[in-house]
């Protein structure tokens, strides 16, 4: 700051009237951030979440690119290299039939993650449609859907899976169907709650006052605003389904050989735990890392989306 004394000799010129500065008055100083850019900014600050994201991408790259680099075929059996320890030729070693475990883990991962994604998509579509409908319409529609959800939610999951795989055979389709049939209930409840909350906000009423129909209100206003929470739910669900599939395969209800998945690989490896632990170790490691990655990303997203942490 300049001291007062130095102002005594100010020239007349500086006292020229300039008036209001129109540039300044409506000027926005902060850089423009879209909602998702803002979420990404907060997500980036979370080191664990970034670690999860990197891990997730690495796993995906590995399972899709891995077999190309290793140059092995996941079905090819070479009786001369049974049960090898990890080495420079076979990075994760070989199994009791002389197959390359690294390549098999990659292929199995594709199936596991595919099932995870498929189940989540089915869950999301059914759950959010029914949930949105229940939340928006209210009254008897709401009652009907929620009672239906309660009935489905109380079905014994394992028995359904066993029956379905028996009837439809052990195909990926059957597994996805079996796991999705009960899973949408949680999503439905969550979406309904979100919609009920959003419905009360003025901008929904403003849209109605502008003459918007129900479809417009749902797709233009409600869903985009509920998307954040739904995304967290999706990220957190995928590892659950991967785990579920692994469990089914482990107990022998999963994919049929020669197709494989992490669960099937672990199941096979378990028989050789005593002498060749690496056969079990690698598929299990992948399951753990994948679950961890998705959970970290999900947590990070949830935190980034929480309006209480917004500034």
């Amino acid at each position, binding site marked *: 700051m300049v001291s007062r004394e130095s102002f005594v000799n100010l020239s007349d010129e500086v006292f020229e009237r300039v008036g209001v500065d129109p540039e300044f008055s409506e000027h926005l100083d902060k850089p423009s951030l879209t909602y998702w850019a803002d979420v990404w900014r907060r997500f980036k600050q979370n080191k664990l979440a970034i670690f999860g994201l990197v891990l997730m991408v690495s796993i995906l790259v590995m399972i899709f690119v891995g077999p190309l680099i290793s140059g092995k075929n996941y079905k090819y059996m070479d009786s001369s290299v049974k049960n090898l320890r990890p080495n420079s030729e076979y990075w994760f070693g070989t199994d009791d039939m002389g197959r390359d475990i690294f390549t098999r883990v990659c292929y199995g991962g594709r199936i596991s993650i595919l099932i995870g994604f498929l189940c989540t998509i089915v869950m999301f579509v059914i759950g959010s449609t029914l949930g949105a409908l229940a939340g928006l319409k209210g009254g008897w529609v709401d009652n009907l859907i929620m009672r239906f959800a309660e009935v489905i939610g109380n079905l014994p999951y394992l028995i359904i899976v066993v029956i379905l795989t028996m009837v439809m055979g052990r195909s990926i389709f059957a597994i996805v169907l079996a796991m999705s049939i009960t899973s949408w209930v949680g999503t439905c409840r969550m979406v309904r709650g979100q919609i009920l909350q959003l419905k009360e906000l003025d901008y929904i009423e403003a849209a109605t006052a502008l003459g918007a129909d129900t479809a417009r209100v749902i797709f233009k206003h409600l869903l985009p605003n509920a998307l954040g929470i739904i995304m967290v739910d999706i990220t957190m669900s995928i590892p659950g389904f991967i785990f579920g599939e692994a469990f089914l395969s482990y107990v022998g209800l999963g994919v049929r050989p020669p197709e494989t998945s992490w669960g099937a690989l672990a199941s096979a490896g378990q028989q050789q735990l005593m002498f060749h632990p690496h056969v079990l170790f690698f598929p299990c490691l992948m399951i753990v890392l994948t679950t961890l990655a998705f959970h970290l990303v999900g947590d990070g997203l949830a935190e980034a989306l929480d309006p209480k942490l917004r*500034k």
Partner: protein
Amino acid sequence: MKNNILLEVRNLHISFSTYAGTVQAVRGVDFSLNVGETLAIVGESGCGKTVTVKSIVRLLPQDVAKIHGDNVGITLDGEDLLSLEEVEMSRVRGKRIAMIFQDPMTSLNPTMKIGDQIGEVLLIHKNVSKKEARLQALELLQMVNIPNAEQRIDQYPFEFSGGMLQRVMIATAIACDPEILIADEPTTALDVTIQAQIIELIKNLQRERDMGVILVTHDLGVVASMADRIHVMYAGQIVERGTADEIFYSPKHPYTLALLKSVPKLTEDKQEPLYSLIGTPPDLINPPHGCSFAPRCEFAMKICRIAEPSPTLFGGYHESCCWLHHPKANKSGVPEILLREVV
């Protein structure tokens, strides 16, 4: 009254670190509060008035808020509050300086009975038994005019209306006979008829107890009905200070004048168009050069955008920071009231 200085705030700067940069919320605020007077800090949201009073009782989040400034000081009766340990501060807070907030609902614990919440303050600060605390709590509730206090004392906050809760807050605040009551927008959340009751209550309590009151508000009506002296804040600085009459009847800063002219008066009949300031207060991450009000000021001169004006004294306590009072200032078109010599 002049020599009875109770609380003094010197060259207070407060900044907050956010992702977008450092927000300079308060930029060099000085004021003092005398015994038994009501000092109002008036300003719009974001001008730093709440931050200023919260810093007095050290209620700012310590991880992001930083108090600084050359020779900065907050002294209560000669004791520097800024250098106190947290333990010592907690003895000042609630006991010597009490605070009430805009939203009484969120300042009370919803799972505790009203009587216990008032009693808690007494148990902490005064050496009383539980029974004694309850008795005093009851007395306090009666003092703030809560009907059926004997039954109300065992009720929970949700059973009270907003106005009643504000009464409870006031009862809690005066429980330990504080020397200073800080009221941060005490009536903003209330209806007009209830607001009138609360203003009346605070005025009466102040008179009875000779408390110093710091009133933070944006409502000029409330200020007119309560304040002895007024500080007008804009963009983290005090732009004008004076007694209530000086500020209302001979404002010396264009912002003060704009504020006064932008509210319609119930008592006036034919009203001229409301004065409307264009634009919004500046972003305090990047405060403008010179006078922070200059970009919105229709009388702004070149100098206003270059250098900060220093205060001009108009006798007594009345002070305004504006270049218009410089002898060489371009005074054409400036309302006469801003320039008039005070008698």
